[in-house]
């Protein structure tokens, strides 16, 4: 690429390009409300049924308000071990029989354990929707929990831990969480090996008994289905499940202070960046305006940060910013993996974009583009089973009004509000930054940006 004149335009036109005028666009000004059936069983289980689509499949998702957030400091990933044990079958069906049964219905049981949600679910053919709901119920109501499988499952978790700790993105996120939420459940990302090895079946059983019950659970079923039949199946399958008190996570107590926490990864050809600030939770009136602000700054491809450090500078492939939301705890973060020799420059450019947004409101056009993208993305998300479930789960997890309408809320945001949100929440004087990279090449680039704290990986 050395030999050509920089500004030379290559017009590889294979003839006359389409001469027609740019067509106009009609976008919907509101989004139709999808069909939905909701009800609550006597034991507290909430159920949401979302009929949708032409493909004969359903998604079933039992979300339970627990996960790593209910682990004690000495019990990190105990919830993960509990999730793995739930996969080992029910009193009626061992693990192999459980897998065979689900497969005969065109499905598979998946158990997920996250910071604020433990989920049991999967997909199945539509004509087995009711059966599959019944199978999910059996897994949480009468799990087999074989102690004999504990050594194998711990070995699996130890392997996953080793792999996770070798990935630069996970090293960076683990460090960031420990800084934002010191001494708190969301700040604990990895267990120690000794911790994992020590867990007993009694601990797992105690965890499940305390936190996995109907009072904390919400069943979602979406897809091509007969809502009445699915309702009946859900009532029958879950009617006798043990109830309990619903619980919402207490708000986290985040900390933040301007500094770069540097984690050594000798020889790394990229630096993994996290620039972060704690922000308000989704039930706060500033949240949607902040979401719009994030979208404009770094949240989609046409955003300012991506345009800058990817499309102008070529420093990185997949930068993105987001509001990382967990129940009771949200932080804004800009992520990027950048070529090692431009680590300092990339941070400076990101900070420049933040400063610009704090100083000057965006144009109405730029904001309109962002809003259109949010509306369109929402619409597209609603065209999938998983997207419909995810949106309802977001509303329920964060305790938003049942009729919460992201599209309508986003439309209310003005350019001045965006500037105000950046001013209020994206304060560089408080920003926690993490850099995982090759110190020999990177340290000198960080001088003058912020105080650099040499930091060890989270154990």
């Amino acid at each position, binding site marked *: *690429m050395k030999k*050509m*004149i*920089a*500004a*030379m*335009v*290559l*017009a*590889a*036109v*294979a*003839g*006359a*390009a*389409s001469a027609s005028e*740019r*067509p106009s*666009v009609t*976008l*919907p000004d509101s989004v139709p409300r999808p069909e939905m059936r909701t009800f609550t069983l006597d034991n507290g289980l909430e159920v949401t049924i979302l009929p949708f*689509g032409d*493909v004969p499949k359903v998604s079933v998702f039992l979300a339970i308000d627990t996960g790593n957030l209910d682990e004690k400091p000495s019990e990190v*990933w105990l919830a*993960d071990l509990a999730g793995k044990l739930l996969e080992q079958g029910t009193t009626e069906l061992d*693990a*192999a029989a459980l*897998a*065979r049964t689900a*497969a005969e219905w*065109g499905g598979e049981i998946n158990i997920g354990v*996250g*910071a604020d949600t433990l989920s049991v679910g999967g*997909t199945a*053919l539509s004509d087995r929707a009711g059966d599959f709901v019944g199978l999910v119920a059996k897994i949480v109501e009468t799990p087999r929990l074989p102690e004999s499988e504990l*050594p194998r499952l711990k070995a699996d978790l130890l*392997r*996953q*831990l*080793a792999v*996770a700790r*070798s*990935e630069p993105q*996970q090293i960076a996120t683990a460090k960031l969480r420990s800084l934002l939420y010191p001494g708190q459940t969301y700040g604990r990302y990895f267990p120690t090996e000794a911790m994992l090895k020590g867990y007993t079946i009694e601990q797992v059983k105690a965890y499940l008994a305390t936190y996995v019950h109907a009072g904390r659970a919400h069943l979602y079923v979406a897809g091509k289905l007969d809502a009445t039949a699915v309702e009946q199946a859900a009532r029958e399958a879950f009617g006798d499940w043990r109830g309990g008190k619903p619980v919402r996570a207490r708000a986290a107590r985040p900390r933040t202070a301007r500094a770069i926490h540097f984690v050594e990864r000798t020889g790394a*050809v*990229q630096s993994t960046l996290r620039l972060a600030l704690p922000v308000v939770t989704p039930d706060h009136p500033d949240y949607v305006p902040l979401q719009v602000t994030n979208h404009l700054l770094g949240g989609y491809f*046409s955003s300012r940060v991506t345009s800058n450090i990817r499309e102008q500078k*070529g420093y*990185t*492939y997949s930068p993105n910013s987001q509001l990382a939301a967990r129940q009771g705890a949200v932080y804004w973060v800009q992520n990027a*993996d950048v*070529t090692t020799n431009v680590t300092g420059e990339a941070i400076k450019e990101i900070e420049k974009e933040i400063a610009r947004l704090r100083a000057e409101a965006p144009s109405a056009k730029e904001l309109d*583009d962002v809003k259109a*993208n949010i509306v*369109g*993305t929402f*619409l*597209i998300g609603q*065209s*999938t089973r998983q997207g419909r479930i995810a949106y309802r789960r977001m509303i329920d997890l964060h305790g938003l009004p049942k009729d919460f309408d992201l599209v309508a809320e986003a439309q209310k945001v003005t350019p001045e509000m965006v500037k105000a949100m950046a001013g209020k929440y994206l304060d560089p004087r408080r920003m926690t930054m993490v850099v995982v990279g090759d110190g020999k090449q990177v340290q000198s680039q960080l001088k003058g940006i912020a105080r650099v704290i040499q930091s060890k990986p989270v154990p």
Partner: protein
Amino acid sequence: MSHTRSLIAVLVAAGLGCGGGQAAAPPPEAPPPPTAEPPAAAAPAPAPAPPPAPPGALQIPVEYHKLDNGLRVVLSPRADMPTAVVAVYYHIGFRIEPKDRTGFAHLFEHMMFQGSKNLGKMEFIKLIQSNGGLMNGSTRFDFTNYFQVVPAGALELVLWAEADRMGSLAVNADNLKNQQGVVSNEVRVNVLNRPYGGFPWLDMPQLANSNWFNAHNFYGDLKDLEAATLEDVKTFFETYYQPSNAVVVVTGGIDSRQTLEWVKKHFGPLPSKPRPTLPDVSEPPQTAEKRHTKNDPLAPRPALAFSYHVPPRRTPEHAAMTVLMEILADGKDSALHRALVLEKGITDEVATAINELGNPWNYEGPMLMTTWLFHDPSSKPDDILAIVDAEIARLVEQPVDAATLERARTKLRSGFYDTVEALNGFGRADLLAALALFDDDPSRINHIEAEIAAVTPELVQATAKKWLARTNRSVLVVEPGKGAP
């Protein structure tokens, strides 16, 4: 704590930060095996008449047209959708790139977002995103695709924009330099700076195949990427990016008459040359097991992958191979999950795929079925392979029982539905495009269920015997680095 494995294959994609880029599945490709099969290349041997559709099979509307300039057009309206999907596929994948320009097909894909006659840099993307759409592009073995999911009211604009860049590419040296930087960073983040980078999706084709077109580094050597010139970009565009070498698919909430008019209006005037001649990508039959050990200094644990060349598409044996994959290795009810996870505790997950960068139906040339897993140093590759061989022996020695076959077919059908729905409805557009591009027959999408249903126990056994032979296998061993914890 999201420690879920991020070890899934990464799609060679423009990575535009939207729903399109994340690859789903597994591995690479391969060719006809140890017998005198016809080459699996261009037009596979005449396919037998499709078996009748099973009752309740999904019927997807397919309207197929050809414009005078050779552009193939597939429309599939769907009444209940407020969105439309536009997919433009070019018959140029990363198998077929210049020998001193590895990675060029993918680099070129990035250039298609850098500007055309009426849309400057960033404008195409902004146009789609500011109208509420998602878009991405990706490069695969046999095609390069560009697609958008948009509110239906933006459809004509998208067709206009895609026609603009099919007809004209307007990029400069700065754009090229910029995207060389972006792609180099893509290779770093997905391969060089992470454990298990390129395992097995990038490594395995290089081991299992012997024809350079199938066996080179598709992501590209960084030196080759750096060496690309604007002249290369121009030549590539003129050779492969023209109506006769492309398919346009529109699905979703569309009026097909109106849509066809718009397609004709915007794409119709584009001139076209005859389709480019494609090189011979066939693979010679493999006659002995291959094995390679890769030392990965960033990997903390060993890993193992093994691949078999699969029968050519559009044959009953190919359908049987998809069934075999379900029985042997796909999902928690599979034989290998039972043996390696539940019984021996060697790994927590066995992953498998025919066409790791897609699905068993959306490719053209030689292909592999690849299976892979991560394990502890206490398990040795040969011991794991002995367990695999014992499970395969059962499939070779006797016909599969009726219940196992039925379960495998049900899983395949269910998985096929997921494929059709994937990525916000883009999945059906993808299959329609591939079947039009490679077979000139998009309506085949409605025969796939029947092909699966027609697989018999005898065919499963015969296919296992021939295609799951050790002589048809390649084994890739990943040894963890010395410094690993």
